[in-house]
């Protein structure tokens, strides 16, 4: 087995590593610690954060790609042949990928959704609902459900106990009682509840997926649950990596425009006014087309479809990043203008402190709340943007699993009679929960960090 990281894998792991190190440094300041403590004092924020962590967990699972040596009986022993690239998540959901059906089937169905023509043993042709290949219907769903729920419950209790045991110094029993009564400063009870509910839900879905197509199958018989879970990575990646690209540009240009003024300010303002007066979709469509042509001209850049779609995702993230920095840049420019007039900056100037030091020491730390707020706010916008762009046809690669692609396919399915609703429904639910959680958390962050809302 060898690791074959994709570009986006590297970026997302680098980001997680960077965030951890950055968080560790930031946690040394008492003020920052207190602020975050304050943010998570709200139960909604805590629950949202747990939901987001679940999504992040799936993203990270899906961001470890590797190849295993395949053992085909026919090949020579000297030649090592690798199986196609897989991620850890694929490994976990391998049965779903394998249990592909012929065509549409409804959630928990045992037969196909539409009638097919079959020829009987006695040569008679008739229409019938064919049974699904991989749904046996032998084991009782109730029994399965019970096992799943018990397993889930056991796992969540273990997880919670592990957390209490790791993170508190008091006696285990006193902490547990305090937590259950909700007497902590942080709403741990809500956190544990959210954690357990999510874990139960996923265990149930997972266990049931061995016997059924829990969320049905699509036109070519692919499992919709598998698609929805695989789409998590695409959505989350577009949300966080785009911000990563946009942020340095916005901060650098915004602060320079605000602090230096004069022709620098004029040039930057001209740039973002021009950019923001071109319709966003048009700009992105143009960028995607250019990229498409470029990729068609350089087939040596990628070895497999997975790599191609990954490269396309990377370019899409770049394009989204380049087109979406203007709003934040404008905000930062205005705030920098304000801060640079405040007396502590004048005092620093009177000490002959250099401009770069002034930016690093006085301006950027006082911009942090704006940056943080806009990052979490932009995240949900970008997840939704992916869906819209894929629907229009200028989003991610058509072979890539993404909620946008699922919705795009569902467009035709909705027009069928009887209607095929589960693709759209699953994509919608998965995306809705993610965006809702991100929005709720960003509301809370905004409330705590924005100096105008003093708590």
């Amino acid at each position, binding site marked *: 087995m060898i690791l074959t990281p994709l570009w986006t894998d590297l970026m997302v792991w680098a980001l997680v590593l960077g965030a951890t190190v950055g968080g560790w440094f930031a946690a040394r300041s008492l003020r920052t610690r207190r602020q975050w403590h304050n943010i998570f004092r709200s139960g909604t924020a805590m629950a949202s954060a747990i939901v987001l962590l679940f999504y992040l967990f799936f993203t990270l699972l899906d961001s470890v790609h590797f190849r295993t040596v395949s053992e085909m009986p026919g090949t020579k022993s000297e030649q090592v042949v690798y199986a196609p690239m897989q991620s850890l998540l694929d490994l976990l959901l391998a049965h779903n990928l394998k249990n592909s059906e012929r065509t549409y089937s409804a959630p928990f169905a045992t037969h196909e959704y539409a009638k097919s023509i079959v020829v009987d043993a006695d040569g008679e042709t008739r229409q019938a609902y064919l049974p699904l290949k991989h749904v046996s219907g032998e084991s009782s769903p109730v029994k399965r459900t019970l096992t799943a729920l018990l397993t889930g419950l056991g796992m969540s209790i273990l997880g919670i106990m592990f957390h209490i045991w790791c993170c508190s110094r008091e006696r285990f029993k006193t902490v547990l009682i305090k937590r259950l009564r909700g007497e902590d400063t942080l709403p741990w009870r809500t956190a544990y509840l959210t954690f357990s509910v999510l874990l139960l839900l996923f265990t149930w879905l997972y266990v049931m997926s061995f016997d059924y197509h829990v969320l049905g199958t699509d036109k070519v018989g692919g499992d919709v649950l598998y698609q929805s879970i695989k789409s998590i990575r695409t959505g989350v990646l577009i949300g966080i990596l785009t911000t990563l690209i946009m942020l340095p540009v916005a901060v650098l240009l915004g602060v320079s425009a605000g602090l230096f003024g004069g022709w620098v300010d004029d040039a930057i303002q001209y740039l973002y006014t021009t950019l923001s007066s071109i319709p966003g979709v048009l700009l992105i469509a143009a960028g995607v087309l250019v990229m498409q042509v470029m990729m068609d001209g350089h087939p040596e850049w990628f070895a497999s479809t997975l790599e191609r779609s990954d490269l396309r995702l990377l370019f899409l993230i770049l394009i989204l990043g380049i087109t979406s920095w203007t709003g934040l840049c404008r905000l930062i420019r205005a705030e920098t203008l304000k801060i640079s007039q405040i*007396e*502590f900056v*004048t005092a*620093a100037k009177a*000490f*002959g*402190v250099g401009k770069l030091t002034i930016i690093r020491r*006085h301006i950027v*730390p006082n911009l942090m709340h704006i940056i943080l707020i806009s990052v979490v706010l932009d995240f949900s916008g970008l997840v939704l943007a992916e869906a819209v762009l894929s629907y229009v046809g200028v989003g991610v690669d058509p072979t890539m699993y993404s909620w946008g692609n699922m919705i795009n396919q569902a467009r035709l399915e909705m027009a069928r009679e009887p209607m095929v609703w589960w693709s759209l429904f699953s994509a919608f639910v998965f995306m809705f929960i993610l965006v809702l959680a991100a929005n709720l958390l960003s509301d809370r962050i905004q409330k705590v960090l924005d100096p105008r809302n003093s708590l």
Partner: protein
Amino acid sequence: MKPILTVKELSLVSGEEKVLDGVSFEIKQGEIFALVGESGSGKSLTSLAIMRLLPEAIRVSSGDVRLQEKSLFALPEYKMQKVRGKKIAMIFQEPMNALNPVMTVGEQVAEVIRLHLGLAQEAVRDKVVSLFEEVALKEPHERYHWYPHQLSGGQKQRVMIAMALACEPDLLIADEPTTALDVTIQAQVLELLKRIRERRKLSILFITHDMAVVYQLADRVAVMRHGAIVEEAACRTFFEHPGHPYTQSLLRDAMGSGQARIVSSESTRLLEVKGLKVHFPVRKGFFQRISGYVKAVDGISFSIPKGKTLALVGESGSGKSTTGQAILSLLPVSAGSIKFEGEELTRLGAKALKLYRQKIQVVFQDPFSALNPRMSIGEIIREGMVSLGVGPARKREQDAYMEELLLRVELKAEHLHRFPHEFSGGQRQRIGIARALAVKPELIICDEPTSALDVSVRAQILKLLKRLQQESSVSYLFITHDLSIVSEIADEVAVMKEGRIVEQGTVENVMHTPHHPYTKQLLASAPRLPTAYQI
């Protein structure tokens, strides 16, 4: 005579904490009752409680407020709304925020009248114009159609007063109505309030921190401290025989030491400013052509001797702060020379200037914006030392140096690791002074260092500045609008008006025998405490 307003044993609580503790007083018909206190003493809360406009976190725990024998706390909200504006009117400190910027001022006053009196359109208009006449707003017919931004601060305050008077209230609550105004304007507004009181037999609850204003205006005075009234007396007796020790110290701080400083003429000139002009270009049009100049500072000359203080006095917009910034080489100078120890500063490049940045430092007006909220006190003070290479180079020795410095400005050594938000205004101002002192300057430009502070804190800061001057013979350029502290801190005075110095000389000469009419007007407008008062 029956009192108009009776406040009886009023107590307010915020959560568990008592913010107002058994406040009682009465206001009679036609009386100006002054509620004096430092910030946080609960004087504004008292007025909000009377209007029943308290913020949600604070509630009334006990006590009663009676307006002409009717308890206000017993009224339902819709009846209380009739009382507000009609029976009790209020004017605020910031006329800027109290007026709606998108309505003409006439309409705003008319709205109040229509709401409470229900007059016909024409009658309302006439009433507004007559009110504008009463508050001595010039050309009331024209002003009716003006928007708030077209009026000056004093005019806005007049409009606010007109609005308050519109429904002929029994009681006017004035919450620091003149604090944001220049002295000459303040004198006019106070005069106006007095006249209205005479004419209408209006009762006024006047909230202020300024003892001199109280002396000029009030009939009776109550001093508040920590949410309780410590002393209440008629104005005359109050100033002649203050009873409570807190009141005595408050009055002493407000008076200043009273003795002018001894001026010796033998010292050398540290800073010489000659014909200094700072003009800001006004740009217009697509190509940003320069279409004119704002002459912020227009040819001023003065000098500061070593170890002495020059006070630069003037009203807002007179160019005092711009002068300070120009001396700090933070603004481009249009013309003139600034000589420091014989060296011409206006011609120096950024590198050569660094030596002089160490010698000229600055202390700001607003102690809250002068310190970066995200840096600890140690980091704030160290910044200048490191940048200019003053003091020891090793971090531990720097810490020791800074601790000593904090002790010098009467703070504690352990404050070094705290953050600005943990300190009060006066303490922050001390930190600002310590930051300037850290680089061992020879001239400190104090840009209104005391105007955001309470009287007692102001006295302490002035004392500190004087002591530091004696210890290290540093010179000050003391920029202020407050004439009452000039004789205490300064050796020489320069009076600025519209970018020019109209009069300068020793404190003795300028303050006692002013020549220029503007200086005379300034001195006449400044509210004064009785000079005979001694403890």
